[in-house]
């Protein structure tokens, strides 16, 4: 199957579109933001539902606590900021007031990963998926494009329980269907193949599709899955794929430590030991630069996925 696209958009705008939909369709949804309304694309939500929006100022810890309190009062709070400030900065608040307390809070964060670009490593969190997936009961979602982010935003409002939704700043190809139904925890099989499994999440999904096309030119058939939900992991789909291919490459805009690849390795080690290669950041911080240049320097693009795929196949 060939994937094409007509436009490129940022996933954060998909979040904004999802929030606009929720402003009109779910009166229980409330939004909070720590002085980043424009970056989170919340303008339409606020215009439609000003009484359901809470500006917290640059005070993320307080935002998480207020969200927990609003959830107790029967609302569905979407707490929004940059991924660095919405996870690492407030880990204990999320742990105690949201996760351990079992509150129906949606932590929705933009500007995750290297593709934040020029602001540099202080803002480029590459540990957020790991931090969030370690919390018992936390659902962790990292959609791949505008349409999928919009669908995921709408879907998590219907799910009862804490969720971390991660998206980003750069424009990327919009290649998944408009108005798709998003199923939490259900991987999407994008390309059929028998030689290597590629499990990608977030911005790396499009890169994985590109990689599969390059591999095909070399006579290698890749089985490509979009793992938009890191937790709960779709282990059924992963097992079915690696049973066919016998090796796997994981690809994510995140530290290798603690990310998607880590979850996959843990599952496969216990159920079907499989040769695995990891596309991710290898125990380092990022730096300032243009997003595409950063992704190339840190080995997070189609070329890197191709290289790791060939290596994985050779190790079978």
């Amino acid at each position, binding site marked *: 199957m060939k994937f094409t696209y007509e436009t490129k958009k940022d996933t954060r705008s998909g979040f904004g579109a999802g929030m606009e939909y929720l402003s009109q369709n779910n009166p229980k949804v409330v939004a909070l933001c720590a002085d980043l309304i424009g970056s989170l694309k919340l303008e339409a939500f606020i215009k439609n539902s000003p009484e359901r929006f809470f500006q*917290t100022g640059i005070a993320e810890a307080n935002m998480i*606590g*207020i969200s927990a309190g609003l959830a107790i009062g029967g609302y569905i709070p979407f707490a929004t900021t940059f991924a660095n400030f919405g996870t690492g900065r407030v880990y204990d*608040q999320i742990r105690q007031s949201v996760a351990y*307390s*079992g509150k129906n809070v949606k932590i929705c964060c933009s500007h995750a990963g290297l593709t934040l670009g020029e602001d540099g490593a202080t803002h480029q969190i590459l540990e957020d998926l790991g931090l969030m997936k370690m919390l018992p009961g936390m659902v962790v979602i990292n959609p791949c494009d505008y349409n999928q982010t919009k669908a995921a935003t709408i879907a998590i409002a219907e799910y009862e329980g804490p969720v971390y939704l991660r998206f980003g700043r750069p424009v990327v190809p919009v290649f998944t269907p408009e108005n798709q139904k998003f199923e939490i925890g259900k991987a999407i099989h994008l390309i059929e193949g028998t030689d290597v499994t590629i499990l990608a999440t977030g911005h790396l999904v499009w890169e994985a599709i590109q990689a599969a096309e390059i591999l095909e030119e070399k006579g290698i058939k890749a089985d490509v899955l979009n793992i938009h939900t890191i937790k709960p992991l779709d282990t059924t789909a992963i097992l079915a794929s690696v049973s066919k291919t016998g090796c796997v490459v994981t690809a994510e805009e995140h530290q290798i430590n603690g990310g998607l690849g880590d979850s996959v390795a843990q599952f496969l080690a216990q159920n079907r030991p499989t040769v695995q290669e990891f596309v991710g950041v290898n125990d380092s911080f990022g730096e300032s630069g243009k997003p595409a240049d950063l992704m190339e320097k840190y080995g997070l693009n189609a070329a890197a996925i191709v290289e790791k795929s060939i290596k994985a196949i050779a190790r079978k």
Partner: protein
Amino acid sequence: MQTQELKNVASQVRRDILRQVHACQSGHPGGSLGCTDLLVGLYFNSMKLAQDANRKVIFNMSGANEDVFYLSNGHISPLLYSVLARRGYFPVKELATFRQLNSRLQGHPTPHEHLEGIRIASGSLGQGLSVAIGTAQAKKLSNDASIVYCLMGDGEQNEGQVWEAAMYAPHHQVDNLIAFIDENGQQIDGPTEKVMSNRDLEAKYKAFGWNVLRMDGNNMDEVVATLAHAKSLLGQGSPIMILMKTEMGAGVDFMMGSHKWHGVAPNDQQLADALAQLNETLGDY
């Protein structure tokens, strides 16, 4: 409930606190004893609580159309557990399981074990006021006229999140909120003045936009009167902060006047000496 009845309940609650902490040889008796009069005054006099046709309290997580209390300084859990049990939220005999394996009465309160009366986990300090603000705003959105209460410690004022919340509540006119600071002047490493001085909390909260009241937190008449006065000041655009002077260990002479009993359990003899000072008004569990 009249003041004398409230004092009787407080005496029993203090016995419960000491017996819980003694049984597991861990927990925090000092602050629990100090805040006993406030929590008894709230739950047995001031708060509007959801009740069934037989006037027995019923627990709803949402707290809709009833007053909600949050304990931010979760280490004084034996006090909260005793008050909730004596008020009828769960069986009093369950206090015997405090801090034991498989108990719903965890060292610090949590809704994780589905204990009636607990809506949020606390223990890691500084988070409760934010949660209280969130529920207060939920009540406003729902046109629910009931009140949200939150108790913090004075040592807890060291936490930065408290001041994020302190700034937020007046800015957003959260005027259905009454918060308390237990000014017992003690924290784990010593007197608050030495460890990290709060300086003038009244001036600080006033500068942040709060309506600040003071009371003697170990004088039941004053507690009841101040709570009534605070309620009359709600709905005027400002949240209310009640600075409450208490004595850590209040009610037991040898536990008062220092931070020594912050997190130390009495031995058998000390328990006997302490219980001798507190009337068994409602029957021990």
